[in-house]
């Protein structure tokens, strides 16, 4: 090839969402203490139960140690150097988009998320979160007609405190892990979804997270409740400006599916990943867990992880209800100095529970990409079944792919199958495509997207093409 190319160079495209919006922000002083927790709660005028929840979490967090079992390397985080609350200066959430600061609308438009009436996607409701607060939620009225509640969690605390109190922290307890405890103490905003019994949510719901401030941590909290026989599909997207410092993003997502309910949760994560030398970027330490409480319920996670300096997340399913189903479809692409330690936990509790895991890891540059998964079959999970497939693709000889699939089984009438493979893009495949006139980079991205196809097929239509493009973009210049 004229470029005597190795596949190793295709992955370094400058980050397209790295701009900073110049907007006045209300920030509290940096650092974390019980006073800060109380301050956040009072700024948000929260009811007592939530303050208690936060304080309990904070006290638990103080007793906990930061985990170090993942094969991740990063300098110690100084939790007193982080600002725990930042919000664009704007007093009330506006009832009409016309009142929202046009700079914010412009920001989201630049990110490809138009919020205004004329431009917004016709079948996707969007909750836009800027730094710590939700600035707009579209299609609320239409959703309300179906009884669907889709709003920021702060609004839910005000308008539906009973629901929040009943479910918050029941899937991910405040002391679940270090970062979940931190999130429970200081979470600022996030999305809340409630689908009433028997309702099939009429459109895709989506939250778009944007970190703007340089020294702010982002601690959003999402809670989705699907009542009996309801169905919802939800998507989150994330970007952040380029800063040469690292920012902490420690989110918690809780999903609850009751009898016959189905939740599909998709993520396209493109936080700033740092530069090619590993300076800057987001630490994405996230706890996501869904509980299939009801019989025949179903929770499906689909994630496309392309950003962040470090990704540390294991979207999980606790399969309690009989015949409930958990799914995890993941594409994780790392390049340059990125590190990803991601996978899932499928905890089979109820009888005849089923789970499927499909993970595709692509490592390029000097990055490290680990799949870490747990399939646990408890003694009561008679007839449980799991199928896992985790494949790695290595681009260049400096990248690492690790696979740690844990299996624990206590039930003889269960079946677990796990398959994994490692491959690279072969020179012959590249040459074949090139000899049909397909350019080098396009050939690589065709093969990468072919490798990921099983996962992209799980994304909502509108986003599958997006994800494909995002991957191509991330790989551009890494093979050349």
């Amino acid at each position, binding site marked *: *090839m*004229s470029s005597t190319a190795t596949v190793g160079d295709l992955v370094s495209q400058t980050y397209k969402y790295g701009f900073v919006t110049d907007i006045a922000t209300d920030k509290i002083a940096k650092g974390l203490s019980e006073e800060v927790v109380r301050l956040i709660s009072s700024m948000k005028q929260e009811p007592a139960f939530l303050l208690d929840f936060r304080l309990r979490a904070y006290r638990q967090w103080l007793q906990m140690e930061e985990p170090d079992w993942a094969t991740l390397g990063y300098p110690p985080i100084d939790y007193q150097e982080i600002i725990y609350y930042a919000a664009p200066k704007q007093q009330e959430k506006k009832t009409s988009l016309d009142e929202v600061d046009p700079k914010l609308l412009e920001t989201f438009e630049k990110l490809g998320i138009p919020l205004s009436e004329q431009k917004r996607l016709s079948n996707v409701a969007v909750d836009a979160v800027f730094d710590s607060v939700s600035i707009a939620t579209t299609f609320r009225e239409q959703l309300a007609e179906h009884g669907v509640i889709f709003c920021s969690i702060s609004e839910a605390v005000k308008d539906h405190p009973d629901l929040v109190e009943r479910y918050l922290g029941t899937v991910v307890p405040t002391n679940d892990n270090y970062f979940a405890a931190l999130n429970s103490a200081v979470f600022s905003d996030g999305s809340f979804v409630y689908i009433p019994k028997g309702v099939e949510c009429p459109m895709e719901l989506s939250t778009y997270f944007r970190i703007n401030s340089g020294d702010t941590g982002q601690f959003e909290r999402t809670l989705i409740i699907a009542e009996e026989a309801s169905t919802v599909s939800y998507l989150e997207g994330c970007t952040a400006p380029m800063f040469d410092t690292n920012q902490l993003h420690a989110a918690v997502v809780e999903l609850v599916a009751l009898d016959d309910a189905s939740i599909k949760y998709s993520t396209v994560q493109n936080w700033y990943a740092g530069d090619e030398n590993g300076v800057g970027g987001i630490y994405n330490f996230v706890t996501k867990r869904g509980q299939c409480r009801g019989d025949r319920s179903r929770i499906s996670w689909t994630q496309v992880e392309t950003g962040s300096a470090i990704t540390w997340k294991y979207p999980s399913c606790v399969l309690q209800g009989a015949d409930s189903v958990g799914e995890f479809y993941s594409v994780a692409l790392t390049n340059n100095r990125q590190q990803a330690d991601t996978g899932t936990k499928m905890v089979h509790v109820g009888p005849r529970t089923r789970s499927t895991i499909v993970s595709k890891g692509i490592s390029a540059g000097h990055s490290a990409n680990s799949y870490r998964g747990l399939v646990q079959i408890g003694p009561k999970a008679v007839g449980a079944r799991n199928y896992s497939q985790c494949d790695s693709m290595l681009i260049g000889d400096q990248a690492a792919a690790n696979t740690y699939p844990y299996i624990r089984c206590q039930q003889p009438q269960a079946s677990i199958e796990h398959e994994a493979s490692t491959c690279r893009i072969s020179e*012959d495949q590249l040459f074949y495509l090139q*000899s049909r006139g*397909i*350019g080098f980079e396009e050939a690589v991205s065709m*093969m990468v997207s072919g490798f990921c*196809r099983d996962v992209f097929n799980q994304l909502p239509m509108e986003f599958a093409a997006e994800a494909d493009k995002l991957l191509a973009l991330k790989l551009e210049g890494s093979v050349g």
Partner: protein
Amino acid sequence: MSAVIRPDAPVLLEIRDLHASVENQPILKGVNLTIRAGEIHAVMGRNGSGKSTLSKVLAGHPAYTVTGGSVLYRGENLLDLDPEQRSRIGLFLGFQYPVEIPGVSNLEFLRVATNARRKERGDEELDTFAFEDVVRERLSVVQMDPAFLDRSVNEGFSGGEKKRNEILQMALLEPVVAILDETDSGLDIDALRIVAGGVNQLSSPDNSTLLITHYQRLLDLITPDAVHVMAAGRILRSGGKDLALELERSGYEWVDAELARLDGEAAPQPAAPQPLEVA
């Protein structure tokens, strides 16, 4: 050295004293061949004679290093070009062993390749729907089941299906010079007829075909204008279609005698010429 069949037709491909090696092992040692529009050439020879290397070098496979000589494609230096550029300007290689590419849809692959060629020619690119019409029409050239379009590129295809998929690509890309590397290998007689029929349908006074083959049986179905016998990395003898028949009768034994004679005559070659980067 090559026979001139259509002296007035424009020269499409001109190979001059081509030397090439793989992993520092010289394979091609001075190949000369001129192909004009409207001609069908056949290169024959035993395993290891360099036939397949010639096709890979012409298509620009990165594992092969050109160490000397030149290749002009319609007067332009072919060796300067990336493999994809060679395809876009009309050079086509039908692979002996088409590679399987799991996950990449055959239809999508054919569309992207076709559009790359169309763009180069200044034709409008085809959207998914328009392309489906085109491809369905071309399927008839190789009597291929449309179901193959929905599968991954060559994945799980039988030997015959892979070769038909190659000729389908040729039908879509409308090459100027098509090089078919052992297209007949591994085909039963019915599949061979279909493939040969496809090649015959696609040849015209404006394009040319280079068949690389072991056996006469392909040449019974596609009549070559010229036959070249390759051995030890060069073309030993050229002739008309009768040469292939003669080979069929008398085998390749004379080749060894000829090689021995040449080795005796030729003074040892000076040190290998300066390596030339493939572009």
